[in-house]
């Protein structure tokens, strides 16, 4: 379907897009520090991060819209660092769609097609429009379409010249929640159908998790972690990723004891996490859905808590709990636990009630202490 795809010669290292040691500065503000990443042919990679983390800047550098201070960009085994956008052979879809309002939908899609006869171009445009399911809207103007339809026209327009790389800059964030969810799978399907290598910038973690093959998580101009969605969720390598993707409880001010044992307040907790850290200060983390009510008094990793509040969320309820010392006194730490509605009925977590909870060792993650990490950042 996509003639350019066939001619893509993967390099020996198997990457179609390579970003090498990108450094970008705006005045004194450092937007990107030493970013390197590779995208395999046909892969869908999402760049995820909070606003101001440099994700859009990275996309603009890959597109050639912004010059980097140092580092290089390779596309299809060719160094395109000094190539203007026109020479990079990519299609780009913006948050604002940037559809030409005075041209009909077909003319918009045809805009980038310049080879072939008028009939051939129209045929190609119609082909792209039926791909995005808008063949019946071909003669309308963009203003007569809904937001989701406009987004799909923008996608069709970007894909019509058969680009070897598709860049999506927050493509769904201007849309309603419902339309956004539907378009996620549609865009993903089209991408897989064409096999076009795609990089998408988003601040919405759900979007990234559901659509991408791999996710780049960024913060403050740094690449924090780059891996598959499941891996990212299950084994974050640093507290930022752990806290940014999904919900996470942090137990700070922990001290490493001998072996796999960690002291938190006056509890000793076991963990299977890799504790090859030099310092003895560390931080534990666990997701709310992994915390369980302790059933057996013989359970290891038991902690006493007092129920602080209960938030009903439909199929689950999130219980906010204040951690108690083993001696029974209140501490300043809070934990959140997700309970299925059946478990809620059994447990009856009324506010103020004291409970014992269990933190499974195989779900307990360990990190450097956050304070220490911050000090490292500053250096």
């Amino acid at each position, binding site marked *: 379907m996509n003639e350019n795809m066939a001619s893509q010669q993967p390099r*020996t*290292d198997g*990457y179609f897009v*390579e970003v*090498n*040691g990108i450094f970008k*500065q705006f005045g004194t503000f450092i937007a990107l520090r030493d970013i*390197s*990443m*590779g995208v395999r042919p046909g892969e869908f990679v999402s760049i995820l991060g909070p606003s101001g983390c440099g994700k859009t800047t990275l996309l603009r550098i890959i*597109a*050639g*819209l912004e*010059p*980097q*201070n*140092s*580092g*290089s960009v*390779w596309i299809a085994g060719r*160094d395109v*660092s*000094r*190539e*203007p*956008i*026109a*020479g*990079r052979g*990519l*299609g*780009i879809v*913006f948050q*604002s*769609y*940037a559809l*030409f*309002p*005075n*041209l009909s939908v077909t003319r918009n899609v045809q*805009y*980038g097609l*310049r080879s072939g006869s008028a009939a051939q171009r129209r045929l190609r445009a119609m082909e792209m429009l039926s791909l995005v399911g808008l063949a019946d809207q071909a003669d309308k*103007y*963009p*203003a*007569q379409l809904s937001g989701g339809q406009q987004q799909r026209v923008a996608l069709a*327009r*970007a894909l019509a*010249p058969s680009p070897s790389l598709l860049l999506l800059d927050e493509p769904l964030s201007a849309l309603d929640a419902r339309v956004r969810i539907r378009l996620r799978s549609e865009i993903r399907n089209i991408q897989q159908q064409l096999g076009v290598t795609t990089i998408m910038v988003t601040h919405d973690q759900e979007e990234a998790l559901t659509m991408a093959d*791999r996710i780049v998580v960024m913060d403050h101009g*740094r*690449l*924090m*972690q*780059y*891996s598959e969605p499941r*891996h990212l969720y299950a084994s974050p*390598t*640093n507290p930022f990723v752990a806290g940014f993707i999904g919900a996470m409880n942090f137990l700070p001010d922990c001290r490493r004891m001998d072996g796999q044992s960690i002291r938190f307040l006056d509890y000793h907790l076991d963990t299977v996490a890799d504790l090859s850290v030099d310092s003895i200060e560390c931080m534990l983390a666990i997701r709310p859905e992994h915390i369980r009510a302790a059933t057996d008094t013989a359970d290891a990793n038991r902690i006493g808590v007092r129920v602080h509040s209960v938030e009903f969320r439909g199929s689950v309820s999130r219980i906010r709990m204040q951690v108690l010392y083993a001696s029974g006194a209140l501490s300043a730490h809070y934990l959140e636990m997700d309970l299925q509605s059946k478990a809620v009925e059994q447990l009856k977590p009324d506010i103020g009630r004291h409970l014992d909870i269990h933190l499974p060792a195989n779900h307990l993650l360990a990190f450097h202490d956050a304070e220490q990490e911050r000090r490292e950042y500053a250096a």
Partner: protein
Amino acid sequence: MPPDDPLAGLAMLPFSSGDGVVRQRSSLHGWIQRTLIALACLWLVVGVLLPMIEVLNQATHREVPVHTEASDGGPHVHVQRQFVGLANFMQYFGLEGISQASFVLELILTIAATTLFVRLLLAYFKRRDTSRLSHRLVVGVLLLLAAQALRSAHFIASHGGHSNLIQSALNSLMVGLITTTIAVTLAFFYAYGLTRTSIRGKMLLRIVALLPLFAPTMLFGLSLVYMFGNKGIVTSGFFGKLPWLAFDINLYGFNGIVMAETAFTFPPAMMILSVALMHTDARMYEAARSLGAGWLRIFFTVTLPSVKYGLLSAVFVCFTLSFTDFGAPKVVGGRFNVLAVDIYKQVVGQQNFGMGATVSIILLAPTLLAFAADRIVQRRSHAVLTARSVPMAPEPVFWRDLLFGTFCWTTALAVLAVLFTAGLASFVAMWPYSFSHPEIYPKLWTLSNYLFANVGGGGYNAFFTSLRMSAWTAVGGTVVTFASAWLIEKTQGAERLRQAGYLLSITPLALPGLVIGIAYVFFFNRPGFSLPFVSFQIANPFVWLYGTMAILVLSNIIHFYTVSFLTATTALRQLDKEFEVVSESMSVPFYSTFLRVTVPICFPAVIEIAAYYFVSSMATVSAVIFLYTSRLPLASVAVVNMDDAGDTAAAAAMCMLIVGANIAVRLAAEGICWVFNRKTRAWRK
């Protein structure tokens, strides 16, 4: 932080250029764009900067006769241009018996000492908790500064003789200040009535308020003469029919000029203020009312602050226009001299180009100050209105609507009177005797004034030349302005060049038409330039322009450039800023997107710019009065000349032709926009 997926075997690259940015290779289109931007800057340099430098040059040089011994032993005199520094300015201010150096020194001392005095005093009052010693120190320094400022000022004043010219500078200042006060006040309440009350006939009121834009300023003078002049309707008590109503306002001089300038500056002030008043968030008023604020408190805490920038803009515009206007003072000024007329007299009457240039610079100084102040103020004016603002929808309030209705309609009638009394008079055979002595002059209505027989100025030839000039200005100006605005606003790269282009594009707003005209006379007349420090002469490559239609068109484009440029820029900024990027990513050349997308979407703005150029060029007299030739007579210049010769009725008739042509063009522009909007309704929201 190493990524999970270590990127082994990535190609290493030698990167980084000299200044630490990886520069992109330039494409052919990039080069074309940069060349076009450079051209856009270059023509503004030739059209604005070089002529202005020439004015400075003229003001600081004098032609001095030099006596030499000729070869045959007899005396020989030839004229040599010499640098005279500020001599012309000192002559202008009537300073005698004082050297230039001490004049400049004392002037700097006065200004510096006064500024320091004020700043120190303010700083001192802001934090008074200083120790005893610094108390005395501050007071001592303040006394010293005050003494120095007074001494220097006294020194300059003691050498100042009487000068007629300094009187006209003060007169101009007075006219500017009083006109600004009156016009901005009227315009504010008029605009308030149009936007914040529910009075009737808003559409009509708006149109009437904008009508003066179509007329040359001489027309306001002529109308005032017909109403309040020696034999005016009011002065003579309706031609002696209602003698008890006779009332002489002492028109010729200050009163007349201020009245005419008020009519002249009312429309732009009204436009600026009504835009400012319209763009206000209704939710702020709801919030203020819900907190229990009365209308007076709301007015001072919500209304005025939200139109602050518009108000300042209106003040600057009114001041600049009335301070530099030439047409109205020429007609009703009498013996009340103003700077603009002085320049005309110095250059056209006395052929004293050096002094003309000097007065131009003095005329330019306050205008430049106002321009700079406006720029500084407007830079802070962002984010007054957000995208979520809710527009105001005024509800009827009987007394308020009655009050504003009366005010607006009275003002509108006054505007109509100032516009069309002269028009009415142009159809009268023998004003005022056809009315006062019908037994001697039985014929009342006539078209003979429109024949322009036995009057100077060029008659219909002048009118048609003006039409041609305005058409060329409209076409050429629109193409150049819109393309330049697009290049400066929508291209990437060449950052510095685009900034320079923007700066050059807004400079013409600070230049009065007279100054542009006189600068062009100097610059395009010079046979050549000698480069400084080397004795090398280059011929002036633009000298052929002098006395042609091209220079008239050029001066008009420059004169009205900034407003058009800003209109285009505003329209362009409303477009999605990614249009160019999307096209480029698909390798579509920039001119293709410009013609297929940008121009069609901005079409109404393009028409608006063209109409503005046409209308302004028809009505203007200030720049072209120095540049027209007998082969190319112009309608507005003809008005001045006919009025000078006493052919008032013919002058009024010519004004009416100008107004008529302008209204026709404006209607045509509206018609085109209407058809365009109808045809493109499908893709407009």
